[in-house]
């Protein structure tokens, strides 16, 4: 096997202005804090973020909002972060709101090589206005297209050197979807295990989805 462990510097060098970045986590739970620090340190701008929410103020994903590195967010809500709301109302950040289950499926589609899914969620609402509707067997659905990010940032509980991953508790949330999505998929893990230390049935994400793993170090602000 080839180890996928990478230094902070290798990862920081990968970010570019204008990229789309999918980020796992939900509220304060399962956020890849160290990889977010790498984005901050890279200083890149004009990013599009794909994530459930923008955190609660200046913590977690909210740090990238406060640092003004983000032009657009594709999320299910921004209500928990006053800074995002302020920038949105000032017209300084673009916000695309998605039903949460739809957002999850769109991220999954991008990772699974699918073009989109049909859902009844959002029929008759503003969500329908921006989409094609399709009728199958007499039932009407909204066609929700796949989302595909340039880079994805995932937090797992445990990893081995080739990126076989296990999650813990509700830190799972969007992480197993996000990890499949990015053209470059980067992972941080709370614990680094040896090869074959994870039993085969514990592995929730096969390492084939992972390109780079942030080498172990002090965890930021968990």
């Amino acid at each position, binding site marked *: 096997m080839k180890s996928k462990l990478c230094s902070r510097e290798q990862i920081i060098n990968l970010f570019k202005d204008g990229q789309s970045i999918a980020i796992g986590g939900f*509220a304060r739970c399962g956020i890849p804090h160290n990889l977010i620090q790498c984005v901050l340190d890279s200083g890149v701008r004009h990013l599009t973020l794909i994530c459930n929410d923008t955190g609660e103020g200046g913590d977690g994903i909210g740090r990238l909002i406060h640092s003004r590195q983000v032009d657009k967010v594709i999320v*299910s809500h921004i209500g928990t972060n006053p800074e995002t709301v302020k920038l949105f109302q000032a017209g300084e950040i673009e916000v695309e709101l998605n039903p949460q289950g*739809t957002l999850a499926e769109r991220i999954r589609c991008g990772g699974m090589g699918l073009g989109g899914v049909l859902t009844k969620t959002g029929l008759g609402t503003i969500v329908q206005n921006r989409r094609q509707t399709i009728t199958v067997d007499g039932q009407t659905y909204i066609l929700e297209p796949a989302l595909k990010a340039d880079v994805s940032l995932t937090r797992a509980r445990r990893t081995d050197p080739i990126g076989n991953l296990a999650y813990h508790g509700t830190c799972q949330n969007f992480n197993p979807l996000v990890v499949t999505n990015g053209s470059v998929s980067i992972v941080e893990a709370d614990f680094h295990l040896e090869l074959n230390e994870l039993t085969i049935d514990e592995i929730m994400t096969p390492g084939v989805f992972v390109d780079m793993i942030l080498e172990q170090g002090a965890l930021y602000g968990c």
Partner: protein
Amino acid sequence: MDAKNFIAKRVAKYFEPGDVVNLGIGIPTLSAQYAAETVLFHGENGIIGVGDLAKGLLFVESFCNASGEEIVPAVGASICSSATSFGIVRGGRLAATVLGALEVSEFGDLANWATPKRAFGMGGAMDLVVGAKKVIVAMEHCTKDGLPKIRKECTFPYTGLRCVNHIVTELCVFDVGEKGLLLRELAPGKTIEDVAAKTDAPFEVADDLGIIGA
């Protein structure tokens, strides 16, 4: 018992043993404490079996509810990804979802996530009202300014159309169907006229009109 708990207690009567139910924030969440022990509560973040708020060593990042509060998983709880979590929702596996509302129309259209000035995200609400077997609105009957929230038509952005099955307020219980509103129960001491005065839509009255809590 205050109005909020009065509503929450009535809502919990819709839950059957073994049900999996999603509760929105506010009054809906209060209904958990009046539910049978065998009801499991679903969190949008992928937990089936949201338990009590956590304390001490159990207060950890790894177990949160959909509001991001640290909780203890209930006995029998399980956890899944956000995709599977909403597969449970859209797949019809929730016995009920309980939500607050800004407005409900007489045919069960729901507006609960945005006003023309504030549209900060629907979260999981649009999925929940499409997928859950029973959609229950739990709310105070009128706005803080005393205006009716049950109306002929909604004026705020929709969460879903013709999706609400029951409305529970401090005044009454409505069933909502294809023919519109049916008054099923009154709060103790309230009259049909009291409800009519605070409801901006026509309604039928059930033959067996009951009293909440009786």
